[in-house]
């Protein structure tokens, strides 16, 4: 069962990639927010993209083929 307020984050190689992903989310109307990477996660880039856990599939589909080197981690 997915809690209503549970999130996932997309980790990126660099901020440029994070901003690219944010644009893709906007065109697909998937709500997201760029936030500092949570302490316990390790990332090449200090900014990650948080999304609602319920939308994980949409996020993956939207980014597939458009962005290289990203990683999705559920919180």
């Amino acid at each position, binding site marked *: 069962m997915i809690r209503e307020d549970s999130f996932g984050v997309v980790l990126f190689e*660099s901020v*440029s990639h994070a901003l*690219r992903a944010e644009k893709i989310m906007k065109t697909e109307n998937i709500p997201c927010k760029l*936030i*500092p990477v949570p302490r316990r996660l390790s990332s*090449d880039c*200090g*900014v990650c993209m948080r999304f609602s856990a319920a939308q994980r599939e949409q996020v993956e589909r939207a980014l597939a083929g458009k962005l290289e080197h990203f990683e999705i981690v559920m919180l």
Partner: protein
Amino acid sequence: MEVVYLDNAATSYPKPQTTLDAMMRYQQEIGGSPGRSGHRLSIDAGRIVHETRETLARLFNVDDPLRIVFTKNATEALNIALSGLLKPGDHVITTGMEHNSVMRPLRFLASQGVDLTVVPCSDRGEIDPDDIRAVFRANTRAVVLTHASNVTGTIMPIQEIGALTRTRGDIVLCVDAAQTAGALPIDAAAMGVDLLAFTGHKSLFGPQGTGGLYIRKGLDEHIGPLMRGGTGSRSEFEEQPDFMPDKYECGTPNTIGLAGLGAGAAYILAQGVATVREKEEVLTRRFLDHLQAFDGDVTLYGPRSAQDRIPLISFNIRDISPSDAALYLDEKWGILCRPGLHCAPAAHRTIGTFPQGTVRFSFGFFNTEEQVDLAAEALRNLLDG
């Protein structure tokens, strides 16, 4: 006295109001360091830089904005490209019309063991693509040339040369678009361009301190960076990242400048490069027509027709030195132009004006037909007086 600014080839002036507004807005309302901290102002700053990258990608028909590296000017972009790509034992081809931002790195690299061939151009600054192909060798690594001369305004046949390098398959085409980005249509893919160096502060209407280098996908693996340092990425590691654009962008960027460049480039896109080109061609034609009336008193250099040149015209007036002419025009008429060698001694050698140089007028999108007429009137006065 109001100035008539005819030195747009050096830097464009004035800028569109949107360029100035964007710079002020960034510094007053955002001010953050792009991509470094995770807070909202840092992310907003990062968005501006990204937006500018996307606008330029649209302008040059580049599909991935991350293929565009920001530099402080076209000279830095060319240095990254040439020093990064060429190794001792490589052969590189260039033309006799290049600016020192191409020639100085190439001459230095030649002193370090790179083989350099300079293909001569006509006395109007034209290059024959067949002359370039004729000097291809097995170890030719790159052809480097300007899109248009900053001395004669001659537009070079990039598309034809790109077809030659594409046919060879293993030769990189590096183009200096300092005088053409924003003024002539540039489709990097269609023209076969692998490396495109551009400046932000001329026809792209950004401020000084901005420019960039487009690197075709796959080529970055073969080009070392000029600088290494902090990128806000891979911060756990003390090695420079190997991905675009971070590999070539370290240290805090000129964010206020990139905000301005983004607005300037957006302005050009909104007007349409074709519209800009049409207006500038009209101004050029008008001035060339005026020059015809001067007959033997004014020597014109470069192509005779406006469509073969960017809006930049070099000429000499009878026995008057270029610097005397330029001073007269500035002091008596408020007409501002550039005399001398224009940082391109090679070009002046090619057209026969070395070492005295020429007077250069360079029109821009904000110049008017009245200003062109005034410039002609000033020349008439100079000749009669």
